[in-house]
């Protein structure tokens, strides 16, 4: 099937839910930086994962070949997304699964609520899922009188503490063992009061706390790491076995998955199940991976639903420069290597998706005009570490720069009156568009000397340039430009004026 689009082009429809920062990044970052405990915990954690990742990646002789394949597979997925979605739907449905489509967070929440209501249950167990966090499902269910229990240890810690995740892989990365013990003692009613801060004891407390819930749960909610179009198979990657519990024991399983999570072929999983665990936890393989295709009679949930979520993904797809952000497999390698993330932590980004990928994905999904998210593309030093770490080779720095440009354009559209910066840029455009223009300007160089005075330093300039000189001095410009000097030194015998031969010099 061809993707040739014949209809009326629609304007991008942006996403909603927990994609927006509640305050601009610089402000939030400033506050989070004041939290020394947070920074110590984060520094330790990101460095530990970083080292583990490097070790297991170095083990494979074909890591780069795998990245090339992964990147190409995801680009191919996006290029033929409509056909793949229909293929996935046909396969999943043929085996008894039921597919629902949700344009945005609200619609997805309503669908899930409706499905839970139909079972008559008021409690559900949940396995860690970015998509349901993005749409704010837990909060929505609570308003509807349905209790959602997070079962991933880190998510449980965060939920018990009424906090928010700060890392997509280790959501409680900002808490240390003493803080976790304190949360358990305070919030788990069945906890042993003699609980120590040893990680093994804390994990055991979580096992006891959740065991009965798992064994009696009738409805579970999950996300999915991959959906395989040619077979209609869904995949969940995890460590603790809470995922297996949720995906196997209940009668009803409701999965929420972004439309970009597809892979064309079952065979493609051989690439992604090597890229993902090594990039995310720095393990050769994660302890458990579950795969299911619709309903298996007698094995696992007999009522299986999938909610396909847009919520701004199509808007990201419409951005030709930015669409590769949708290739993200949520491994979190980019945040673990990011010097900005390492210091501010995930909360400063506001959105469900923090770190370098969040800085591009959130504004792509909400639109750069979203007030709070327009500062996100600036939350980077453009050092490029994220690009090198990314298993699917998303060029995050390039997209950051592209979004900064979009932001500047949108700000400009908002003010209408050209700013001084605009005028300066316009001036530069004029100057550099033609050698003759530049020649003319360069004649003014000696004027700079006048402004600078005897010490050859310009201390204060008017207007916007004045802001620049508030905190730094500018050396006075030389009496002649490089071009003038060059022309004098290499005067063409035919008498060609420097300005006229300049076109070819602009390499």
């Amino acid at each position: 099937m061809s993707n040739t689009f014949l209809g009326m082009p629609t304007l991008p429809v942006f996403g909603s839910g927990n994609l927006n920062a509640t305050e601009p990044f610089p402000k939030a970052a400033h506050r989070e930086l004041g939290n020394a405990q947070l920074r110590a915990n984060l520094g330790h954690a990101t460095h530990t994962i970083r080292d583990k990742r490097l070790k297991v990646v170095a083990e494979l002789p074909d890591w780069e070949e795998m990245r090339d394949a992964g990147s190409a597979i995801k680009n191919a997925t996006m290029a033929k997304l409509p056909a793949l979605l229909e293929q996935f739907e046909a396969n999943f449905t043929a085996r008894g699964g039921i597919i629902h489509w949700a344009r945005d967070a609200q619609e997805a929440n309503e669908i899930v609520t409706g499905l839970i209501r139909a079972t008559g249950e008021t409690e559900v167990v949940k396995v860690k899922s970015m998509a349901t966090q993005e749409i704010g499902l837990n909060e929505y269910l609570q308003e509807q009188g349905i209790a959602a229990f997070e079962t991933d240890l880190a998510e449980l810690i965060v939920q018990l503490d009424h906090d928010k995740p700060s890392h997509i892989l280790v959501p409680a990365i900002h808490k240390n063992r003493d803080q976790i013990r304190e949360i358990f003692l305070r919030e788990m009613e069945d906890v042993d009061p003699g609980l120590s801060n040893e990680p093994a004891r804390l994990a055991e407390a979580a096992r006891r706390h959740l065991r009965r819930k798992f064994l009696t749960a009738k409805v579970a909610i999950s996300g999915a790491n991959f959906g395989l179009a040619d077979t209609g198979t869904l995949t969940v990657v995890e460590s603790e076995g809470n995922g297996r519990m949720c995906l196997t024991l209940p009668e009803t399983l409701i999965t929420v998955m972004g439309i970009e999570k597809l892979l064309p072929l079952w065979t493609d999983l051989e690439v992604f199940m090597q890229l993902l665990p090594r990039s995310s936890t720095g393990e050769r393989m994660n302890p458990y991976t579950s795969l299911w295709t619709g309903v298996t009679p007698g094995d696992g949930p007999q009522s299986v639903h999938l909610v396909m979520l847009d919520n701004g993904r199509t808007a990201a797809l419409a951005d030709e420069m930015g669409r590769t952000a949708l290739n993200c497999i949520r491994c979190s390698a980019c945040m673990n290597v990011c010097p900005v993330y390492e210091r501010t932590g995930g909360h400063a980004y506001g959105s469900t998706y923090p770190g370098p990928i969040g800085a591009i994905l959130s504004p792509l999904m909400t639109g750069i005009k979203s007030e709070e998210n327009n500062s996100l593309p600036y939350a980077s030093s453009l050092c490029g570490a994220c690009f090198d770490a990314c298993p699917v080779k998303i060029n995050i720095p390039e997209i950051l720069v592209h979004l900064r440009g979009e932001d500047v354009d949108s700000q400009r559209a908002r003010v209408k009156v050209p700013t001084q910066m605009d005028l300066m840029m316009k001036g530069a455009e004029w100057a550099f568009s033609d050698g003759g223009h530049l020649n003319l300007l360069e004649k003014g160089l000696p004027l700079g000397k006048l402004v600078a005075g005897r010490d050859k330093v310009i201390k204060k300039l008017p207007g916007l340039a004045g802001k620049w000189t508030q905190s730094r001095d500018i050396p006075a410009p030389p009496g002649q430009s490089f071009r003038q000097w060059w022309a004098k030194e290499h005067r063409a015998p035919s008498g060609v004026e420097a300005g006229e031969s300049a076109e070819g010099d602009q390499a």
Partner: protein
Amino acid sequence: MSAREDILNRIASALRDSPATPEIPRNYRRATTMTAEQRLEQLVDRLRDYKANVFVVPAAGAPAKLAELLAGTASIVVPHRLPEDWLSTLLSVGKDDAGSPAVEVDSPERRLTVAELDAVDAVVTAAAVAVSETGTIMLDGSPSQGRRIISLVPDRHICLLRTADIVEVLPEAIARLDATSPQTWISGPSATSDIELERVEGVHGPRTLDVVILT
């Protein structure tokens, strides 16, 4: 317009520049370069790294090994098509000795309930295939491995594996598996690194994983 049509339209509109579909370069390793002995050695090493207990025994020694591992265990569950000789061993272990485990067989005719499974101490299953490079054992729900639930709820999983089913790299395993069968890929006992990234084995899944490799 339905949400489905709406979303498909939005996608088509987003792709109106008709981006090219790239060729997929599959230049990564897709077949083993190791001998069977090397694969076995690698698998043992990787599984132990995950804190699984690994035993390599000749096929004929399987009954004795199982009896040894199950000494002192009150009850176990097995899938109904566990290979004949393994099953008979287990059943005879159960019969002969008052101190040996009661064996429950989970079959399409009699499926154990969650509560019944929660009451047994261990599960014994076969495996479909294993990947030595990553230390991964794959179960695909076939009758020798049983329903997913039986290898999940008991706190100890004893998994029997034939050396012929050990491959080196993941693509080889993918080629052997049927995508649509309900699968569980297992790389060590359940674990978490959620607390200060310190790995702790044993959370919700079986806290003990014993792998018996039959040569």
